[in-house]
């Protein structure tokens, strides 16, 4: 558990981060979202003390971060940034093994970990281990950057716009990868992004920052349905709100008995995709299957009911 306790940062008398408190549960993804200048990156960088807080403290599993030397603290916290920041003069294997090496792991254990992570990220170890970063594509470099941040099984991983430099298709794939790997490893991740879509898609919790203050901290559904301020409402995007809300709900939640024609959808499909299928194929109801076995149907009316705002 990560506790951020009334943390502030002043630059030249101006509050860049203003008394932010939040608690992050272990094994979840928290997305910190805001416009540029909202203080979101400063907040993130105060957690591993790349920026020293002016006041307040951060506790990781009860231990204040101020109790450790900054470089020792950072070795326990994974860090991945936009543009990956890999060491161009080290091979992929050495890049991923950088933190375990600093921590003095035996060579055999580092090699095993590097291969494990490369496999997890869908990169054949024998093929990629000894290459240099410049020989990889942008998406591969970014994956190696995230793998490096995860290498020492850190208590927490911080990511600063990790997918910012990727094109939309690679970006979507990288987000899927991150979700899958976070589930597999049970990692705790705090991620900074300016993209509300990404925050809603990746975050178990979303923290919205505006002018140095935390204006709302809640689940994606709460943020969309009950935005705390006009700024949050603007961030979640007026007209897209119902669709964003639907994208959070799987078909299994509103499946009902009854017949339906045509190609079925999976129970795990989200309602936005189900709605899209309804509209595209001109149907009012879709059959729903789980592992190939029919379990009922989902209707356009039921989807519409879930997309309605609170009032």
């Amino acid at each position, binding site marked *: 558990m990560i506790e951020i306790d009334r943390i502030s940062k002043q630059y030249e008398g101006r509050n860049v981060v203003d008394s932010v408190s939040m608690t992050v549960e272990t094994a979840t993804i928290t997305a910190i979202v805001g416009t540029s200048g909202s203080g979101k990156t400063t907040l993130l960088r105060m957690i591993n003390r790349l920026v020293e807080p002016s006041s307040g403290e951060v506790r990781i599993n009860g231990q204040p971060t101020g109790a450790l030397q900054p470089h020792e603290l950072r070795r326990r916290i994974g860090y991945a940034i936009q543009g990956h920041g890999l*060491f161009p003069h080290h091979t992929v294997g050495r890049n991923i093994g950088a933190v375990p090496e600093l921590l003095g792991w035996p060579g055999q254990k580092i090699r095993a970990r590097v291969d494990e992570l490369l496999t997890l990220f869908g990169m054949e170890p024998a093929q990629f281990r000894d290459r240099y970063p410049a020989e990889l594509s942008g998406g591969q470099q970014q994956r190696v950057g995230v793998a490096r941040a995860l290498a020492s099984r850190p208590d927490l991983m911080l990511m600063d716009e990790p997918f910012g430099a990727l094109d939309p298709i690679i970006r979507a794939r990288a987000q899927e990868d991150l979700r899958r790997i976070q589930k597999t490893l049970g990692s705790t991740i705090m991620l900074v992004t300016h993209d509300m879509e990404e925050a809603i898609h990746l975050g178990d919790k979303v923290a919205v920052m505006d002018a140095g203050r935390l204006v709302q901290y809640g689940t994606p559904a709460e943020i969309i349905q009950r935005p705390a301020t006009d700024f949050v409402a603007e961030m979640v995007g007026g007209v897209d709100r119902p669709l964003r809300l639907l994208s959070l709900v799987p078909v299994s939640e509103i499946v009902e008995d009854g017949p339906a024609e045509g190609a079925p959808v999976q129970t795990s499909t989200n309602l936005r995709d189900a709605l899209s299928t309804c509209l595209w194929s001109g149907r009012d109801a879709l059959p729903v299957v789980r592992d190939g076995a029919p379990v009922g149907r989902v209707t356009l009316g039921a989807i519409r009911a879930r997309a309605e705002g609170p009032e």
Partner: protein
Amino acid sequence: MTRALVFRAALCALLLALVLRPDWFVPVFAPFAPEGGPVIYARASLLSLSLSHLGLVVLATVAATLVAVTLAILVTRPAGAVFRPLSRTITNIGQTFPPVAVLALAVPALGFGAGPTLVALFLYGLLPIFENAVTGLAALPTATMEAARGIGLTRWQRLWRVELPLALPVILTGIRLSAVIALGTATIGSTVAARTLGEVIIAGLLTNNTAYVLQGGLVVGLFAVLLYDAMVQLETRLARRFGNLTGG
């Protein structure tokens, strides 16, 4: 590639022959020697002069590298940034002082021989290495430096494992310029009795023997060309391995 290799091998062979078997070149240099005068410099072996010449150059370049790179590291730290203009001025003065003047001023202090030559070569070699090292250390990819700090490298580890290796190709360029300049400049050391290949050239000038001048000049020139080439090879190999430094 292979043609370049053949050319390189031919130059090496020519240099070795000039240094080890100068007698072979009597027919070549004879037309330039004065009537009835000696054609090949024989007062000292060219091999021992070459070794002593190279020794001076290596010593001066190593010393200049150590001092210039240390200085560059200091002024590229946040705490040392204020000293950057000052250190630049000092190394610039080293460069603007003519080597001959340095020799003349150093002789009273250090006496005749290798000492004043070393001082002149050292001062002359500081600037290119310093300038390149500062450029190399100041122009590192920001994302890489940010990540190095963020994953928990200490200041020293960042310097040794990231900054210096990444700046190395640029620093090497400075060392190359410096070494090649020193190789040529060392010849004037013979005016204050340092044992260098300049001895052959100066003997030729004093006795109006163009054959000597050509011999000394050719050996020094070949050394310079081959050294330059070897260091360029090293730099390209390093640069190729690092690939695109900005890591876009």
